[in-house]
């Protein structure tokens, strides 16, 4: 193979990467159709992101500014961070955020470790009862959380962990869904990569840690992201398990703030911005993991 032949295939994709409007069949799109598409996209953008921006704008409006004006004023006349100070004066918002962070971080660690271990056992290890173990996780995945939440609450009371952050973390700390996700990831690995290590005398733990685990980092990242978001966003379970305001997570604290401060929307708005900003930042950094497998292939055109 000559050097020229090696170079050519590199150049073609480079040319194709230039911005070019094509449909899913690679054809060019007419200008009016393109304009219509952007118009629709902008309309949906206003509908999906607009409410967040309105909330941000409200949170920056000062006490003297009329937030009820008609027609509405979209930009704060004299932007101020005063409302964020007032949230902190009303509820210990930074403590709540820290509680949420602790719960979410614990959930990420336990879910990643627990479901990787169990997923590996279901996919790669041979033993009696493996099918039963798999079935247990499948059944657990099918049980709707809302239906068992009262029994989870009584179980937590029996364990004496009611009204603790550990109690918030425990029921979801190894999600059955995540175990099955990890199982599928391990199933898709070719057996050959582990066989060599097996022949060399590596035991199950060594094969798991050194060979299998590094190959499923992508799935592990997905589990981590969803574990973080799930814990940070959860509302119903912390609402049931936490009764002491000093232990609230951010979502429960916000609900509390909304209840006590419903008359000043600026303060509630500032609270919601505090709760949502870290998630949007996290999402912006990791968004390619959210669209894994979707962005590739035919969608790219």
């Amino acid at each position, binding site marked *: 193979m000559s050097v020229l032949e090696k170079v050519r295939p590199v150049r073609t994709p480079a040319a194709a990467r230039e911005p070019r409007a094509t449909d899913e069949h690679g054809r060019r799109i007419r200008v009016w159709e393109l304009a219509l598409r952007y118009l629709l996209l902008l309309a949906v*953008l206003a509908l999906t992101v607009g*409410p967040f921006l309105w909330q941000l704008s409200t949170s920056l409006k000062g006490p003297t500014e009329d937030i009820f004006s008609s027609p509405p004023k979209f930009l704060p006349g004299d932007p101020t961070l005063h409302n964020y100070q007032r949230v902190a004066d009303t509820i210990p918002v930074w403590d709540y955020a820290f509680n949420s962070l602790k719960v979410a971080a614990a959930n990420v660690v336990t879910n990643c470790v627990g479901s990787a271990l169990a997923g590996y056992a279901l996919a790669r290890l041979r033993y009696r009862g493996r099918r039963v173990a798999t079935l247990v996780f499948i059944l*657990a995945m099918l049980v709707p959380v809302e239906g068992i939440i009262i029994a989870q609450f009584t179980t937590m009371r029996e364990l004496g962990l009611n009204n603790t952050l550990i109690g918030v973390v425990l029921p979801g700390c190894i999600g059955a869904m995540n175990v099955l996700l990890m199982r599928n990831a391990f199933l898709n690995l070719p057996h050959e990569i582990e066989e060599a290590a097996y022949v060399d005398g590596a035991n199950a733990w060594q094969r798991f840690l050194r060979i299998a685990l590094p190959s499923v980092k992508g799935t592990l990242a997905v589990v981590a992201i969803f574990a973080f978001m799930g814990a940070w966003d959860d509302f119903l379970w912390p609402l049931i398990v936490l009764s002491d305001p000093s232990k609230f997570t951010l979502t429960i604290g916000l609900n509390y703030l909304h209840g006590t401060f419903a008359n000043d929307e600026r303060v509630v708005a500032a609270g919601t911005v505090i709760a949502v900003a870290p998630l949007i930042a996290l999402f912006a950094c990791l968004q390619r993991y959210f669209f894994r497998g979707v962005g590739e292939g035919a969608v790219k055109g």
Partner: protein
Amino acid sequence: MASSTVSRVRRHLPTSPWLFAAPGLLVVGVFVLYPFVSTLVNAFTDRRTLIPGRFVGLANFRELLHDDMFWIGLRNSALYVLGVVPALVLLPLLLALLVQKNIPGIGFFRSAFYTPVVASIVVVGLIWVWLLDERGLVNSLLETIGVGRVGFLSDQWLLLLSAMAVTVWKGLGYYMIIYLAALANVPRELHEAAAVDGAGAVRRFLTVTVPAVRSTMVLVGALSSVAAFKVFSEVYLMAGPDGGPAGEDTTLVMLVQRTGTGLTGRVGYASAMSVVVFVVTVGLMLLVLRADRKEEA
């Protein structure tokens, strides 16, 4: 001593797979399967939070039949399914078609449309409470264009409709991604053949796209109907813990939460309601799957 332990562990390797699975099995067993079984058992007792229950047979279920609040909850949860599911099956598909084409900046739009999915339901609920407030943005826009103010959060039915709209709004991006993945697998030859035959965009949508993503539509229907029936947060946040005017907007899961928690919680009675939640959820799944099979035949 230590070395002999190690060699024994090596020789008895077949036990180690259970060590891998043990944490997961333990958590799922204690916090999912045990509560599931105890829900089924408690449903036949008069257990309260601090008082162990006695077996009462079907008394809880008989009481449910005469409990107005239960019927209100069941009605609202069922209405929620009817209101939300068609919108969540259709709108995200249209949205997926809109963002499918590879035009400059499309990645930004896809991510932006996903933002409501990422935001926590409490944030979303509170944002919409403010937007739909008597003096909020939606009403001030309506007043500006001369429609006048609407009591979205004070009327029983408008409140339920508003909550449904919020559920749809939050779910759009999530189901859009599922449809995008499905659309990626539609063979382009089908579209080309239809285009050659002179089929317009609407016709191609109905004759090519819809049949090709039909199984995904069924999946979205199943997922969204089960989720809609179990709705809690949106309505709780928009209507308040007591479920709006005279509790008329209470949903079934709100009722479970209200009845079964707290120091005086009626665990047995709430468990009986939870059993209804299980039965309807499983029923919805079977219904959707059955409809799927019928159409295939």
